[in-house]
């Protein structure tokens, strides 16, 4: 997990190259032999690791992008500015990888643009596809100042700074829509899903848990960047992210308790079967352990404590999405699906590529440079003191 090493030690370089080699072989099999040759999917089990992990987990883990952007630009929590850029970068990379993952998963990647031409407004997947497409564009613009600064193009950079607030609000709306709609994908299959994971509240549960995962990713990647490049953040920034994470997790826990009570799911939580174990693993790692850890001041205020907690939340989150998308369907499908080596190889290669590009970007772009000025973008009316004075006087007159 320590990604400073690919650049300094040959061992990790070799590992990365091996992962890419395996990914390449798997890609060749996928392209030449189709889904049948490369995956363990079948007519009875049409969605597997690529949908469950590469797409559904990937989008959720990138949720830090809209959360932190909203905090900094909409709610003016300027303390979070130092984590904004790496978070936007992670989100942008995350979405790009999700799109690459989708290209592997869909049977006709050559028609991937079809939803743009012939959308079905009743399909949750159509909504997700459109939002992912537009939000990736938004993220590109949010990320672009780093590139423009590096290239020394101040003109376009100023132009983008001007539209930052509408851009961020658009990003928050698009994210709210598709993070929740990833949950809506499952609403139509109540009879196929195991009791722990089907709920009419899936859209809301997915939305809130994505925010938690996003916060955890901020802590996780800040810590990794620190270890790899020595970019030290003030600890209190991450401790604040940790506090938000705690609040979101408690909210999620309460929603889950309400949901389980409303659906009468409690009676199933001790039935000894595979689904129960997976559920407990998910609940302990993703909700209960981090809530306990974050409630302890000493944990919340130390880098290592926060880092450990973020790993708990991220694993719990991934388990939740994988459980919802795969474990939940095993009983009703009657098939024991386990991903093929090619499915795993491509997934691992995508994650490794994400780490690699992140490390490269941090190296060559001003991601962790603390900006000289980061004035919040102002609408034109406020730009001179005269207009401000006039408005103030006007207010006083009233």
């Amino acid at each position, binding site marked *: 997990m320590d990604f400073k090493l690919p650049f300094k030690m040959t061992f990790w370089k070799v590992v990365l190259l091996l992962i890419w080699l395996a990914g390449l072989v798997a890609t060749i099999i996928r392209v030449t032999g189709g889904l049948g040759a490369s995956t363990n999917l079948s007519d009875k089990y049409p969605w597997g690791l690529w949908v469950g992990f590469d797409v559904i987990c990937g989008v959720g883990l990138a949720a830090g992008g809209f959360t932190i952007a909203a905090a900094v630009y909409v709610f003016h929590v300027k303390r979070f500015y130092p984590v904004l850029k790496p978070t936007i970068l992670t989100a942008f990379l995350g979405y790009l990888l999700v799109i690459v993952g989708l290209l592997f998963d869909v049977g*006709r990647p050559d028609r991937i643009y079809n939803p743009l031409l012939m959308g079905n407004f009743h*399909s949750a997947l159509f909504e997700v596809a459109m939002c992912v497409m537009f939000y990736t564009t938004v993220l590109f613009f949010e990320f672009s100042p780093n590139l423009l600064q590096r290239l020394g193009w101040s003109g376009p950079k100023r132009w983008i700074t001007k539209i930052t607030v509408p851009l961020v609000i658009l990003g928050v709306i698009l994210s709210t829509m598709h993070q929740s709609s990833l949950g809506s994908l499952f609403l*139509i299959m109540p009879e196929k899903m195991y009791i722990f994971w089907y709920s009419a509240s899936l*859209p809301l549960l997915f939305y809130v848990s994505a925010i938690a995962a996003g916060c955890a990713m901020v802590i996780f990647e800040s810590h990794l960047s620190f270890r790899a490049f020595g970019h030290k953040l003030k600890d209190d920034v991450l401790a604040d992210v940790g506090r938000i994470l705690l609040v979101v997790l408690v909210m999620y826990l309460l929603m889950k308790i309400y949901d389980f009570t409303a659906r009468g799911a409690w009676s199933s939580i001790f039935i000894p079967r595979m689904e129960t174990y997976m559920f407990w693993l998910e609940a302990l790692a993703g909700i209960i352990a981090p809530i306990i850890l974050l409630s302890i001041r000493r944990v919340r205020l130390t880098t290592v404590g926060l880092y450990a907690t973020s790993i708990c939340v991220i694993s719990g989150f991934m388990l939740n999405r994988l459980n919802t998308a795969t474990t939940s369907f095993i009983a009703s499908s009657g098939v024991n699906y386990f991903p093929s080596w090619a499915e795993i190889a491509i997934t691992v290669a995508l994650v490794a590529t994400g780490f690699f590009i992140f490390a490269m970007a941090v190296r060559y772009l001003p991601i962790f440079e603390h900006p000289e000025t980061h004035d919040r973008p102002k609408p034109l009316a406020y730009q001179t003191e005269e207009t401000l004075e006039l408005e103030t006087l006007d207010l006083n007159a009233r």
Partner: protein
Amino acid sequence: MEKQKGLLIDVTKCIGCGACVSACKEANGLPPEIEEELSADSYTVVKEKDGMYYRRLCMHCEDPSCKSVCPVGAFEKTPQGAVIYHANRCIGCRYCMQACPFNVPTYEWKKRAPKVQKCILCYHRLKEGKATACSEACPTGATMFGDREELVAEARKRIQENPGQYVDHIYGEKEVGGTSVMFLSAVPMGEFGFPTNLPDYSLPQLTWQALSKVPSVVIFGGAFLYGVWWIIDRRMELAEYKAKRKETDKS
């Protein structure tokens, strides 16, 4: 308006000869090999359990999940009742297969440009006013083609006139809001692995309850966020300005 067509399959009359399967394969240009399960090469199969024979095929829902979930609108419920598939739209996301309550759509897993495959109620024949190939081939009348309304009436009549011979349930009359293909049987269809926990309302409305809220999320969410931004920004601006003026007043 054209009347909805349908099939009534009476499990008690089926002798398992497989004539329907062969006729289907011929009518739809599928390879003639007989298979055990539905596949991209078999739109229907005949299966046996405890000496009873039953068919598997697309149920042609009134409000089909496959049509609802498809992001590119590749499925269509025709006025004749057939649920058909437009392969030229399909991107291969396989959401239709995942969402189908009867696990009917299948995929051409081995092909490099794969399509989804499923029974289309011989739509090409329906358009010409003909019955489905399977019903025409059936030697015992176990698969009966007709107007859906009439088929329901016929099914009721059979249940009433032959007490004890049938379970008092027309499978597909109400399941997921009704289907164009219906079954009559001496044992509950659950015995043959058909889902019995289906609601009698259409499943797509479960998605729609969430999706229909999207426009209001966009409008109110956008307005709310912009409002929050504006208020906080304005307050900070005023605070800065006041602080500055205090300084200038002092000096």
